[in-house]
């Protein structure tokens, strides 16, 4: 049998993952700018945990360790999870989430390429269900915080949950806009009243809008590099905007605008970095559209009617379950075949 082709020209898996990490850098900077340097600690901790867990599991599973650590897929998972967690999450929360993502969601399913669910979202969902209180307690953006924590203070908070003597936890945390919106709508306040709260920016969360913009920048880079296809972000953002628009038009005093949904929570991170995970997503162009649109609609419904402020993680996991079905029913027309 022939060995051809003798030539190849493809970026390696490592290169692809490295570019994804690179694309996350602007988002991380914006994040650190808004919430302080604590995120860098979170990312570092998650990365170390992910690599250690990956190496240990590869050893137990008797797989080559070096090539799989160097493929950087564990690092991508770690970074995505870290960016989804509250900026001042305690160290053990980060470790538990990362371990769950790498050990259970990835390696126990067979490692790179075999996980049916997005590992970072599995880790996030597990934490959200297990520790809802910590997971929904976000620090106020630095611009709004009554008391600003220094980097060292943040470090100490992450590892010891200790604050300088004169500061109370409530002074540095606040609800996220999605959370605030949900709580206050239940108190029968109208949207125009709610959006007067200081945590709201022009469209979404104050400060959060900037992070969103940075993710968009990274996402466009990945599209330009052909690391991700346009189908996923377009369909996700389109579906989320469309469903939000329908509700918004129906009752603008109760339902937030599409722009609010686009710029709040993990929308942009999801659009460019989470649903674009190739392993747990569909492979056909049409399937990508359906999958991403499904995530968009589910995200909205969970945000509006679900028990949690943001619905990205659950929406992604639910749609992950549908991937085999989507792929099977969206096979493109083969050359020379009828539709």
């Amino acid at each position, binding site marked *: 049998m022939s060995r051809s082709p*003798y030539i190849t020209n493809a970026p390696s898996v490592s*290169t692809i993952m490295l570019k994804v990490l690179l694309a996350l850098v602007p988002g991380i900077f914006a994040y650190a700018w808004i919430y302080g340097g604590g995120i860098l600690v979170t990312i570092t901790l998650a990365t170390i945990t992910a690599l250690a867990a990956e190496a240990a599991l590869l050893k137990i599973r008797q797989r080559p360790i070096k090539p799989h650590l160097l493929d950087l897929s564990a690092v991508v998972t770690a970074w995505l999870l870290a960016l989804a967690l509250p900026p001042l999450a305690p160290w053990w929360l980060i470790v538990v989430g990362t371990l769950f993502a790498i050990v259970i969601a990835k390696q126990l399913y067979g490692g790179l390429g075999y996980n049916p669910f997005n590992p970072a979202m599995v880790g996030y969902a597990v934490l959200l269900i297990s520790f809802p209180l910590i997971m929904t307690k976000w620090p106020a953006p630095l611009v709004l915080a009554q008391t600003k924590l220094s980097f060292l203070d943040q470090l100490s908070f992450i590892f010891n949950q200790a604050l300088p003597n004169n500061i109370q936890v409530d002074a540095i945390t606040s609800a996220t806009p999605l959370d605030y919106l949900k709580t206050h709508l239940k108190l029968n306040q109208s949207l125009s009243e709610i959006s007067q709260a200081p945590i709201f920016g022009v469209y979404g969360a104050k400060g959060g809008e900037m992070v969103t913009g940075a993710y968009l920048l990274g996402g466009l880079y990945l599209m330009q590099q052909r690391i991700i296809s346009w189908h996923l972000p377009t369909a996700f953002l389109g579906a989320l905007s469309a469903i939000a628009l329908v509700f918004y038009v129906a009752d603008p005093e109760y339902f937030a605008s599409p722009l609010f949904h686009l710029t709040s929570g993990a929308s942009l991170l999801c659009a460019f970095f989470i649903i674009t995970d190739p392993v747990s997503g569909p492979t056909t162009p049409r399937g990508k559209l359906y999958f991403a649109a499904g995530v968009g609609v589910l995200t909205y419904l969970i945000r509006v009617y679900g028990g949690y402020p943001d619905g990205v993680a659950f929406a992604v996991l639910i749609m992950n379950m549908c991937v085999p079905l989507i792929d099977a029913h969206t096979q493109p027309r083969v050359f*020379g075949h009828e539709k």
Partner: protein
Amino acid sequence: MNAILNFFKPKRGVHPPEHKAESTQLPIAKLAMPQKLVLPLRQHIGNMPKVLVSVGEHVLKGQLLATPECTVSAAIHAPTSGTILSISDAIIPHPSGLPDKCITLIPDGKDQWTNLSLVDWRSAPKEALIASLCTSGIVGLGGATFPTHIKLRSSGKSSIQTLVVNAAECEPYITCDDMLMREHADEIIQGIEIAQYLLGAEKSVIGIEDNKPIAKQAMQTAIAGKPISVVTVPTQYPSGDARQLIHLVSGIEIPHDKRATEMGVQVFNVATVRALYRYFTFGEPAINRVVTVTGNVAQPQNFEVLFGTPLPALIQAAGGAKPDTTHFIMGGPMMGFDLPSTEVPITKATNCIIAASPHLFAPPPPAMPCIRCARCAEACPIQLQPQELYWFAKSDAFEKARDYKLFDCIECGVCTYVCPSNIPLVQYFRYAKSEVIAADKAKEAADLARERNEFRLARIEREKQERAQKHAERALGTKAEAAKAASASGYVAKEANTAEAPSSSTSDEEAAKAAKQAAIAAAIERAKAAKAAAAATGLAPKNTTPANPAVEQEIAEIDARRKNVGLENSKEAPITADAEKQAKIAAAIARAKAMKAATEAAKNGEK
């Protein structure tokens, strides 16, 4: 705006580094006469031709050495004058590395032509031209090596509107068609005219990749007002695949289950139409071709090479292979294969020889798991889903692979080329295809055998019943006569044959019994005869020795069943594995009857 649109358009195929400049610096050179020529008899798709010469015979250049035995075959001619040294197995340039029958010719150096018979293509009837082509030895020189006379003959069955001339030469490194067009554009154009005439095609379109501007210019000049057009296609591998090229130049997408000819299109390679020109203008049969020698050689170049030329002579002509050369590749880097030996001859299929070195073709890094990035699916010219096919091929789920159109794969290698995980996808597909084909063949053979056996058993059963019927009728006749006699004479024939007439009763019951006994007797006789026949031929009767107690037990059970269904008469027949088969037939008949009854019942129910 175009850039934006292109961004959203899937990019089918790939554009690897071309490496065509190296071998187009020098014109096509004629290779010096080699010491010997080794001519494989099978240089084409189809059957081996019949050898017409014998060892020691002196032959002239262009003389027919082997003639096609049946339609799908091609002739072999002497590329030069000389003596036949041997007709025996030798290594041929084929991926399998297996030897095949070859004629070895030692040139006498005179290069003396035989008397070439020339048919005037403008006046002779087409049938005569096609018949004459049968012994021209011309086959598709693009690499497929399908006998050309068949492709031209097919025009009789379906009308061809368009002749597509494949000048895409999309594989990197290969430049033989490019150089041929640059230097012999007029011959190609005249060849196209001949092919178009033979096919009865209305128009001819030359499809040429946009990386060959000189060749394109030469072709356009040579066309000079003739009804032939040149269509430039983007340099994007694999545009030279016949179906891809047809789609590119005419917009016609050939359905997967149809041939191009059924859609009114026929495709010829430029080198093939040039060979047609040479044959119909000078009577020259296929004895040489242009071969690109490139890669890790001192001076890459194209050569006009006689078929049968040993590879070393060709490599030497290109300045020799550089020291770090590891092996030679026949064809291009995308679809070519490693030559099994350096001693193989150049054949009709050899369009390019690439000297390979680790520097040129680095071994791929170890494969990583598939991350389902679908780059392969995006690049696949057929729009297959290689990532799914890979999964099925890997887990031997061949039926699933077939469902996902495995057999539409043209093995162009684009999927492997773009895979970030370095998975040799196309090899998996070649493997899966060969497995499916093997399984299909085995199944076909088994089905045929079973069908034959069932038919045979049914026939035996039918004959047996017919015989029994005859016996019964005869017995009934005897009985009636006996009864008549008895009633006439008034006494019972007690001394009569016990088998024939145990009592004086004339009832049908008796007749049936007699018939049964007759059948038994016949069966015993048959068994004896069979035994005797077997003994006479010195063969032990097959399937008569029970292999083990388990088998005996099974036979006993079958016998019991047989009794139940009322087949005990045949007990005297050789009870063996045959008995089992018969029991099965009985069961099948019963099933069929039951089914018939059921359908009838159902029909009645419907009514």
